[in-house]
């Protein structure tokens, strides 16, 4: 009984394919699994494997021709079988759904090698291991096929030899399955506000960035000395905030805000400190830093940060910072640029203090704890030279703290 060989969809989106090359010629014995021809699909050139056995009796479509899926391309049957009727019929109706004999029911007509997207989840054993036979594991390992990219067809979805063979034949999967899963998360009100304000700031305020490195040697030493005698240890951030406040006091143009028609220079230095929370970030504000000592700032910060982490900050405790400091040094970040937190016109991004070889004035290489900082400025308020002078003063004071008294 002659089998009509039709073009099949070799990829999920394939509607037609070009027969690049016939691998068999009329009269050849065909075994199931033999490559009949190479077909160029919308994705790649693929091998068309026969699912039928017998003699290739006729090739209907020549090399180079494009054929829609479902069209007759060849006939396989018993040697010397008369297939002229089928060929005639094919000429009359080039595209036609065929009724298959029972033994080759249509459900088996799915292409053996269709590229398919793997379905995210794999059956796993109780220990969480992907279920695969030892042979499949070994073959996958040698062929470099990741097991989580293979669909198992064995008992209970176990990956078996034929699945690996198929995976190897199919080539790299179009989409490698991931152990992660896509989630849709409802946005909290707070998140919405953060998003809106950051976007407004980044799009509304023309940012520019100034970077430099500060030698922290003296501050570290000073903090060590003070902490050695203090009841409560002072945090490095308290030191930084105090120096920033002092620099802002000296450069009020930086402690300012763009108000559309006016620029406001604030009469006090209220420094916001960016604090990460599980569901966002918040900037509790230490008020009047220009008038407070390091210990007082440190005390305020401890209270505020504790409240922030417990979601207990009142609105007046986290709004209207005149300047913001964001320190990601504890994550090992060397340097970064931050988005200005309105109504302030600048934010200082602090990197990690790290031992770094530096060249001294007299050309010696020495190792110093250097901290990279990056000042983001709203150009509408702070011009480059203003921002630069501010940053230089900050650096000089931090490197040589006695200058604060000048």
């Amino acid at each position: 009984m002659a089998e009509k060989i039709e073009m099949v969809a070799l990829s999920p989106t394939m509607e037609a394919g070009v027969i690049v090359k016939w691998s068999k010629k009329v009269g050849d014995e065909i075994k199931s699994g033999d490559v009949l021809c190479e077909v160029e699909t919308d994705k790649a050139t693929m091998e068309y494997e026969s699912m039928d056995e017998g003699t290739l009796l006729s090739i209907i479509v020549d090399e180079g021709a494009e054929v829609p899926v479902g069209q007759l391309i060849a006939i396989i049957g018993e040697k010397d079988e008369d297939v002229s009727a089928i060929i005639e019929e094919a000429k009359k109706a080039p595209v036609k759904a065929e009724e298959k004999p029972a033994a080759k029911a249509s459900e088996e007509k799915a292409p053996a090698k269709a590229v398919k997207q793997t379905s995210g989840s794999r059956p796993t054993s109780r220990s969480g291991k992907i279920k695969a036979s030892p042979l499949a594991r070994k073959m996958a390992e040698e062929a470099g096929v990741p097991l989580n990219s293979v669909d198992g067809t064995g008992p209970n979805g176990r990956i078996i030899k034929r699945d690996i063979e198929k995976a190897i034949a199919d080539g790299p999967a179009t989409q490698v399955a991931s152990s992660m899963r896509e989630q849709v998360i409802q946005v909290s009100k707070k998140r919405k506000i953060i998003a809106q304000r950051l976007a407004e700031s980044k799009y509304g305020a023309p940012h520019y960035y100034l970077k430099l490195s500060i030698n922290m040697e003296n501050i570290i030493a000073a903090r060590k000395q003070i902490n050695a005698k203090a009841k409560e240890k002072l945090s490095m951030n308290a030191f930084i905030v105090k120096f920033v406040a002092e620099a802002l006091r000296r450069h009020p143009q930086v402690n300012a805000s763009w108000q559309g028609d006016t620029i406001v220079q604030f009469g006090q230095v209220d420094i916001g400190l960016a604090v990460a929370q599980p569901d966002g970030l918040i900037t509790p504000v230490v008020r009047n830093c220009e008038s407070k000592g390091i210990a007082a700032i440190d005390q305020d910060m401890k209270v505020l940060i504790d409240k922030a982490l417990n979601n207990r900050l009142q609105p007046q405790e986290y709004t209207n910072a005149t300047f913001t400091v964001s320190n990601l040094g504890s994550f090992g970040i060397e340097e970064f640029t931050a988005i200005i937190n309105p109504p302030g016109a600048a934010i200082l991004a602090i990197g990690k203090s790290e031992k770094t070889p530096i060249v001294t004035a007299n050309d010696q290489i020495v190792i110093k704890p250097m901290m990279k900082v990056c000042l983001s400025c709203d150009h509408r308020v702070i011009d480059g030279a203003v921002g630069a002078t501010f940053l230089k003063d900050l650096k000089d004071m931090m490197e040589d703290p006695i200058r604060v008294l000048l």
Partner: protein
Amino acid sequence: MAKYDYDLLVIGSGPGGYVAGIRASQLGMKVGVIEKDKPGGVCLNIGCIPSKALIHQAHMFSHIKDLEDMGLKVDTSGFDYTKVFEKSRKAATDLSGGITFLLKKNKADYIVGEAKLTGPHQVTVDGNKKITAKNIMIATGSSPRSIPSFPIDEETIVTSNGALMTKKLPKKLLILGSGAIGMEFAYVWSSFGVEVEIVEIVDRVLPIEDDEIGKFIKKTFEKRGVKFHLGTMAKSLEKKDGKVNVTVSQGEQERVIETDMVLVAIGRAPNSQNLGLENLGIKTEKGFIRVGDYYRTNIPNIYAIGDVIHSPLLAHVASKEGEIAVEHMAGHKTDKKMDALLIPSAVYCEPQVASFGYNERTAKEAGIKFEKAVFPYRGAGKSVAIGCPEGMVKVLFDPKHKEILGAHIAGAQATELIHEILLAKKAELLPEDLATMVHAHPTLSEIIMEVMRTVEGWPIHA
């Protein structure tokens, strides 16, 4: 009223038919199983089961010497083969009764009569009773094949049927064919003192088994006095003075073997006649019904399984094929067909032979690269302790991944031992998995562990 009398009608109640019937009933189908002879088919009545009863008794008889080794004096003068025969019949009758019980228990109707297909959904029983069914399964099995030059009378020229029903042993038996059936009868009858000669057309014993295993079996049979004529064809016979003279030819040479009885054991032929296949246009090939995936014939709702189709003529194959077909009818996900490389074969002579998958010859023919590991029975202490040190296990494996390609065992309990390796093959375990699995000591199963260690290059007892 339902459209059809039954969801499934099975023609034949052998190991293919009755298993399919019970499985179908379990899956919620209304089932009828039609049988013209006795329930259980050839397997139970005139095949596997009575022959195993004979083999068991032959085994006991041939081990009388072991008793004498203990100082016992055994008087064999009262030996009566009729009693051996009767025991084998009782085993068959008992089990045959069990089939009707199982069918009844599973609510499948057992219908006695000769079935003929009279429509795609209709079977006529005994020419008058019409029964309809949504699906029909042909499981009519096979009968011993005969050759025209050796007309069967089932008395002096017998098939396995006549041999099993023989109540009086001949002095001399000539067996045509050294396949499983020929070798099992050779074992049984030679054990009881019959002089046995075997004529085999090809140049090896147990032709479908591995050559090395065949050679080993030939040697052990020759030790017990069985004579082989390999590469030899039986041409004709002449009955004379109660004797049978069989002319055989080996190449150009012809000679005559005188014997009392001839057993024709050259294979089995499908029972596809008188079923009405031609009425429906069901296609056959050399008598075997042609089937596609799920054992469907060219008529979509008619299935055929077992010896009547072209697949290994084994009861366990028929049962599995029936299961696949029935699962498919029920719309369950199932393999399209049995994997030929996962079918165990078993020969119950002594030593036993069991195998599956590729042997060296078939692997070479198929162009499959392989390596082999062989381990002798003697290497496992148990075999020596129970007096069965003769035997071997051979494993063929893929050189690249060490996938098991086939296994061949000759020796005591081979037909049981094979399944550990077969399970490993089916589950795609690797030799190292069996090599490192703890096996109880002392057991014959240690041979399996050792041959797998041999694959891995570290046999302990070799």
